[in-house]
């Protein structure tokens, strides 16, 4: 199992994502200006502030040459995980529905939250039990998930709402407490909280590992 972690100017959490993915497989960094996916089985678009988050979070990064490759990879069914800024990039790129708007509290907020696994059948959550609560940190200023209501209904019906904030824990004002969604085909997943920062009891919790383990299972190359 080989993960590729994208690196844009201004990315922050790429080393953390690499460390986390490295616990279940091999993980390499992919430079935004290159076009070679280096034979990776799954791609992670990491958190941070690509291009300073200027204009709109994710708006500029989405056009990088490497993202063009990732878009093609995703259209071919490749596994793509977007975390925080990566989620924003995937929405901007049209790989995921919806958009992420400024938190209703208007502040960057960093908090440990519980995520409820709504869809345990995706390639990103198959190591989780239905309804399982994962303790994972969230830290962002623009994490309010938005999509039109009819689209949200359709997404719910199709199992595209993958994780929600546990009741009372959604600080950003997301529609229907949504923390992460997948595309219709189920091979692209984005979420605002940071599973890569929950892979070691020493620094918090280990619940986030489940996401990476699920991906390894899905790719059929788990080294766990």
């Amino acid at each position: 199992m080989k993960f590729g972690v994208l690196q844009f100017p201004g990315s922050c959490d790429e080393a953390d994502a690499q460390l986390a993915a490295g616990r279940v497989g091999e993980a390499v960094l992919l430079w935004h200006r290159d076009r070679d996916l280096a034979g990776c089985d799954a791609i992670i678009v990491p958190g941070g502030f690509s291009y300073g988050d200027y204009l709109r979070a994710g708006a500029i990064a989405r056009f990088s040459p490497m993202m063009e490759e990732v878009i093609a990879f995703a259209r071919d069914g490749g596994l793509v995980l977007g975390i925080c800024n990566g989620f924003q990039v995937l929405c901007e790129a049209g790989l995921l529905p919806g958009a992420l708007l400024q938190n209703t509290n208007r502040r960057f907020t960093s908090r440990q939250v519980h995520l409820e696994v709504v869809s345990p059948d995706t390639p990103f959550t198959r190591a989780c039990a239905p309804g399982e609560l994962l303790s994972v940190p969230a830290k962002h200023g623009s994490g309010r998930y938005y999509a039109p209501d009819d689209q949200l209904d359709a997404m719910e019906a199709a199992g595209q709402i993958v994780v929600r904030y546990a009741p009372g824990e959604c600080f950003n004002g997301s529609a229907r407490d949504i923390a992460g969604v997948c595309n219709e085909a189920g091979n692209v997943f984005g979420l605002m909280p940071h599973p890569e920062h929950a892979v070691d009891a020493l620094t918090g919790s280990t619940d986030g590992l489940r996401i990476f383990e699920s991906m390894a299972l899905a790719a059929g190359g788990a080294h766990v």
Partner: protein
Amino acid sequence: MAGTLGSGVLMRVRVLVRPKAGILDPQGVAVEQALPALGFSGVTDVRIGRLIELEVDDASQVEEMCRKLLANPLVEDYEVQLLGEASGTAA
């Protein structure tokens, strides 16, 4: 103080807030540098500011609102545009 009573007619007002000349505009710089890679050439001098639109029953307050709240006079300039009467009227 902006204490005058409104005329009962709501005015639509637009405020343009820009980074002052000479003040660094990191967003503008980043967008300008990104454009060529997206296939847009010949774009220069990109400046990014804020657009504020509101309805007010006494448009004479807006200048003071800009100075006190809407713009940060240390780093931003503002421009007020009166857009005419709003569709509704004030209560």
